[in-house]
């Protein structure tokens, strides 16, 4: 194809802009990784940029001696595994019942569910409910209030509706119960959608921190993100103001090692699961 000069210049600029975007996106992560592996004196002097200087694993040694960090991993893993399993189980059940188009009362139920996407009681009433249920300081307070996401529920319901009715009818004739149909027919047929939604739930559990701030006072039950916040930010603004880092623990590398320790699982899995997320956005934008 014939190209004008202007088009060629644009193409070069476009590639440069895209490379700059990639740099701006990746540099913080690269820098954080480099700092976490560098000797503190180089870090403090601001010499570490793309690669570690004075390579050391000291920060990671300190990090994994903190029992709070290990507690954090345990708590977060519990939330991700148990939480996501319950999320999927109850979302799938509810979605299956609501995917039956001629169910009497279906529109009322759907309205009540969609309404919760637009209106809620707010922070304090939620807190009072969790308190009345005696869930304060329990990891269940971080799982149960978010068992079903209305948004994911609607996506899954639409997906179930797209399954050919003949398949479901034939297994009904074969004598399967509705739960049997759900688990032996509908779910196996919807695995891509379930994977996507499960990953959304899992990342949500991995990243959430605010509910733990209000529901969990006991540090031993803190999820990883909250411990990271504590290490990163406590007295941090003062630190920025006085710029005085003079403790024996290599503070900066330690902070950055915590960031890496908190983010690494997401980063490692990300390239493989990325396509599922994108698919998820597409499913979500299809109306049903």
């Amino acid at each position, binding site marked *: 194809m014939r190209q004008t000069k202007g088009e060629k210049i644009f193409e070069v600029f*476009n590639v440069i802009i*895209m490379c700059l975007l990639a740099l701006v996106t990746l540099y913080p992560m690269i820098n954080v990784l480099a700092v976490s592996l560098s000797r503190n004196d180089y870090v403090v002097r601001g010499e570490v940029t793309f690669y570690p200087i004075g390579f050391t694993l000291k920060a990671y040694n300190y990090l994994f001696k903190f029992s709070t960090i290990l507690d954090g991993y345990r708590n977060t893993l519990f939330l991700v595994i148990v939480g996501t399993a319950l999320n999927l189980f109850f979302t799938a059940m*509810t979605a299956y019942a609501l995917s039956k188009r001629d169910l009497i009362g279906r529109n009322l139920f759907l309205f009540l569910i969609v309404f919760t996407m637009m209106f809620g*009681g707010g922070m304090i009433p939620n807190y009072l*409910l969790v308190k009345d249920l005696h869930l304060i300081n329990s990891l269940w307070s971080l799982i149960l209030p978010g068992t079903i996401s209305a948004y994911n529920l609607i996506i899954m319901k639409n997906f179930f509706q797209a399954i050919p009715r003949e398949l479901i009818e034939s297994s009904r004739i074969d004598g399967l119960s509705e739960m049997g149909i759900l688990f032996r027919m509908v779910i196996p047929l919807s695995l891509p959608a379930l994977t996507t939604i499960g990953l959304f739930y899992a990342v949500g559990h991995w990243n959430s921190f605010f509910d733990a701030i209000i529901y969990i006072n006991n540090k031993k039950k803190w999820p990883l993100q909250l411990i990271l916040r504590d290490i990163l930010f406590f007295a941090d603004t003062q630190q920025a103001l006085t710029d005085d880092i003079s403790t024996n623990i290599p503070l900066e590398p330690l902070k950055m090692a915590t960031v890496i320790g908190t983010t690494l699982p997401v980063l490692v899995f990300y390239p493989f699961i990325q396509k599922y997320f994108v698919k998820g956005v*597409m499913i979500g*934008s299809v109306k049903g």
Partner: protein
Amino acid sequence: MGNVLIDKNSGKELHKGKYNLKRKMAKIWKDKSFYLILLPGIIYFVLFHYVPMYGATIAFKDFKVMQGILGSKWVGFKNFIELFNHPSFWPVVRNSLIISLYKVFWGFPAPIILALLLNELRKESFKRTIQTISYLPHFLSWVVIGGLAVKMLSPSTGVVNLIIKALGFKPIYFMVNPKYFRSVLVLTDIWHGIGWGSIIYLAALSGVDPQLYEAATVDGASRWRQIWSITIPSISSTIAIMLILRMGGIMNAGFEQIFVMYSPNVYDVADIIDTFNYRLGFENAQYSLATAIGLFKSVIGFTLILITNKLSKLIDEGNGIW
């Protein structure tokens, strides 16, 4: 009940789709296993969504922990009057709207521009690599992003200030300076969302008929002309709908982000409705007042969503590209 099952087909023929009560009950009984499957979900939504909505009535009460939600005295709009007269109330409403509007103004076009630029890339593998990288920040928590921001903007070791110093200027304390803090919020928000936000536009772009471009090329239209006359018009309804929906969430200025990144130094410019709500409730234990401001925000937010959903449906029917 169990043996009044009625043949569905003949029933429909007789009554032309109109169920009488008996038929309705029979149908419900026939579908009982579906209602059983639905039950946990309904219990969940009632307990964790509708009970707190009832709990929000303490906005109209003088809530005492010992007396509970039911036992506390009704006080009408007293909490709201107190709220509207609170010295922090109008400033936090203003901050919420200003930060939100800044984010729309700078942040809304960003993914559109990215999508347009990505769409012009020739090499598919390069395009896909850039896409994969640009989605990444969406999966980081605000705690991590806050940590990255502090590191990048650090006056002593952050790359931004290293550049500023190399150019011969004094380092800037971005995270604690009210002059710069809102810009930090807007820029980190764009960093977080630009790639992910572009997906929807890329999808719209991939739906454009390639024949349009071919025809335009035959007619001698330049690449610019094609972008202006084919590409942009073909995603304009998506843009309009996304903008309208975005305006529906204008009361949300980005609670988790600000909660992680702000500090008393920047309360004047960054304290929003939700952060104020949090401090009223959990630091001052003023439950009724905090619930009142939460309800204030929810009601306005709900109204905005209703309006914007109506508007987006109008556009949707008008163009039908969505």
